[in-house]
């Protein structure tokens, strides 16, 4: 019973990471495609300003995913990290590059250096979600079991590839939708249309990929495929589709706040659909939730700690997102810290 609660908690936290972290990765994706220094200057400026106050918060969700995995289901944690060593190691490297690139670009004033940091940030924004997606695909396809040795097959297979690409497309979609309303918030009206077009493109890519994935993964990830095409899994998947369409239509009607909500719902419901489809397995079709569950006492305490945390963190999270969307959060400028320009500065 408690194990099921914790398993759903894990799914919810993964969904939260997919939405929050996803938006963040998506912003990085559009940074990558923004073009040369001159052409991409304004979109990059917007991405910088929109992401900066919340990117750390967005990425902390990953740590929760790991902690719930190893405290709640230690056997599963061990199996996943042994079998999928390489993509997870690459995701770790990607995390470092991405965070460092973003954090160091902000206070840098020279174009040449900014370009290097920006490129590092943008490329790893593409690679990290791909590898994390492929890990999810590897698990969903049933290639990971307790004791599986690390192998290329565990993550270089059709399901992993599709999951990785879907993850990238989903982050791009989320990122573009969020940047639309950010553009309006920062008064950059020309960028609203710019990102709206990109949100539509990303959604189209998402739909195409989902349609391609259906036949490709049918035999490759049979258990999850069946779960997604029947029962509650199908319902969630359909709802995700409806929300995605709604987000696109809301963008067309210029209702950016609502399109944000439905874009988040799209991704969250897609993750939930995967959760329903995989029931009762953590590692289809070899390890169930109850088999993998850690000590009952620990699970109960994990539940209690989570409850307390929701009470404490929830209001703070609402506060930061609210302050952010109200435009109350602004970076310190050179004037605030009274910094001088240096010879060689470009901006």
């Amino acid at each position, binding site marked *: 019973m408690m194990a099921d609660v914790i398993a759903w908690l894990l799914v919810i936290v993964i969904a939260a990471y997919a939405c929050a972290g996803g938006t963040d990765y998506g912003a990085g994706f559009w940074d990558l495609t923004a073009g040369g220094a001159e052409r991409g200057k304004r979109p990059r400026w917007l991405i910088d300003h929109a992401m900066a*106050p919340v990117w*750390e*918060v967005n*990425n*902390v969700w990953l*740590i*929760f995913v*790991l*902690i719930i995995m190893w*405290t709640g289901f*230690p*056997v599963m*944690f*061990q*199996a996943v*990290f042994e079998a999928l*060593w*390489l993509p*997870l*190691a690459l995701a*770790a*490297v990607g995390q*470092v*590059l*991405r*965070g*460092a690139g973003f*954090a*160091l670009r902000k*206070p*840098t*004033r020279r174009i040449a250096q900014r370009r290097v940091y920006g490129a590092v940030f943008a490329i790893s924004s593409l690679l990290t979600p791909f590898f994390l997606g492929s890990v999810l695909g590897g698990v969903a396809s049933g290639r990971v079991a307790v004791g599986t040795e*690390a192998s290329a097959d565990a993550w270089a297979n059709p399901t992993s590839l599709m999951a990785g690409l879907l993850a990238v497309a989903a982050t791009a979609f989320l990122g573009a939708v969020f940047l639309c309303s950010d553009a309006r918030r920062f008064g950059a009206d020309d960028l609203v249309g710019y990102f709206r077009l990109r949100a539509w493109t990303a959604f189209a890519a998402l739909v195409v990929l989902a349609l391609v994935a259906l036949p490709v993964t049918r035999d490759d990830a049979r258990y999850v495929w069946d779960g997604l095409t029947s029962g509650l899994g199908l319902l969630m998947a359909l709802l995700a589709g409806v929300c995605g369409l709604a987000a696109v239509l809301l963008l067309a009607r210029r209702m950016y706040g609502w399109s944000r909500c439905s874009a988040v719902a799209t991704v969250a419901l897609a993750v939930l659909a995967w959760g329903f489809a995989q029931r009762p397995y953590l590692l289809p079709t070899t390890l169930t939730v109850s088999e993998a569950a*850690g*000590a009952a*006492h*620990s*699970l109960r*305490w*994990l539940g209690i*700690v989570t409850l307390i*945390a929701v009470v404490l*963190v929830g209001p*703070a*999270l609402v*506060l*930061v997102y609210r*302050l952010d969307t109200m435009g109350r*959060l*602004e*970076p*310190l*400028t*050179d*004037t*605030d*810290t*009274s*910094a*001088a320009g240096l010879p060689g500065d470009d901006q």
Partner: protein
Amino acid sequence: MLSIAVHLANTPPQLLPAREQMAFTLAMHILLVPFGVALPFITVLMHYRALRRDDPVALLLARRWSAVMAVQFAIGIITGTVLSLEFGLLWPGMMGRWGDVFGLGFGVEAWAFFLEAILIAVYLYGWRRLKPWTHWWLAVPLPFTAAMGAFGIIAANSWMNTPQGFTLDAQGNPENVDVRQAIFTPMFGPQYWHFIVAMFMTAGYVVAGVYAVGWLRGRHDRYHKLGFTVPFTVAAILTPVQFFLGDNAARAVFHKQPVKFAAMEIVWKTDRHVPEYIFGRLHGNGTISGGIKIPQLDSILAGFKPSTQVTGLTAVPASDRPTPTEATIVHWAFDIMATIGSVLILLALWYAWIWWRHRDLPLNRWFFSCAALAGAACLITVECGWITTEVGRQPWIVYNNMRVSEAVTTTHAGGIWTMLGIVVVLYVTVFSAFLAVVLKMRTRWRIADEGAAARGAHGPETDIPYGPRREPVPGEAGAATGGGSGTPSGGAR
């Protein structure tokens, strides 16, 4: 020697690179931890002074510190995330068997850290648009969230040192887990307070050190005085406290992890009237070369009387204790930490004496030279403390319950060596870039201050050399403060 050879033959080839990678990434991350834990507190303190006394210099300092914090916190987050991933990438065996026993500490840490990340975002980005006191109050919980985060991490680490809160079934797997016991292990209290105080001290001395250097370079203005005094006072008050806590922690190790204590003090045979060696090197046959030997002292330090029995390394089989080389490393780390700690006490006393006599900072180059070094010395003690606790536990990852070699991943050694290479290059690049960015910020601020001072000197209202600065004028680009930093006078240079 034979036993060591047998021991090495039993270790899987991926153990060495896995261990090196963990050591390297942790050693780098731990350099940022003091600032993640304690810089918010010092900044909030300075910010309070600014608001309370309407002090523009304090306000400028608080703002600049939070600009540094913004970059530092980000780098700390990514190096911390890497560590969480490494638990799975390098030590899946430990997490697979013990994750549900000791993982909850990490759970507490993650939530606390999440709260800290949220509040720090509000603080760092709230300077411009929030009301001053609202902004300040939103930062007040920051030190508490940091302390809570450290609680979780130290709970997990002290559990590895003195594991409890479970029983073993017939296959050697843990059952009957009791979370409360697993979190509040015997080593938890001593380790926690020692760690927290170390973090505040280190952050204090490092930040003060920056302004001590400025002072030595002749910038004798109120800006440098304030930037030095606030963090230095915090650190100086904590230094004697830390001496007591460190001593307490060492004695807790003596009682709870006698073999680690034997390594820290290179005690070979269990005995009474054990001498204390200051430095020195332990050999495979139990002899010690070099170092200063003080008769009886080790027994006295451990139990307050010369007849105290101290467990030696040979009390357990060679395969269950640190090798002589490891013991020597632990011993040196411990001695360096204790030595620096003692010297810092003298520095704190010097400061107290000056303050008591003059109610002011001295124009004493020696004092500021020592103060400038205190920060770097503190960072060294942080590394040493961590080496003492981690290397001293070898060959165990979970003391007396799981060896490091049993916990290591099954991944091919070549893969881990490759990743280690990438990580080293990456970290060195990222840390150098981080340092370069911070130094560049400092240069910009210094030039702005000097420019303002020069302008002030020719303007109609010439600033008094050590007088207060003007409030930065919003909208005035670049240099915005006035003060006497550009033209040092007196015999300071």
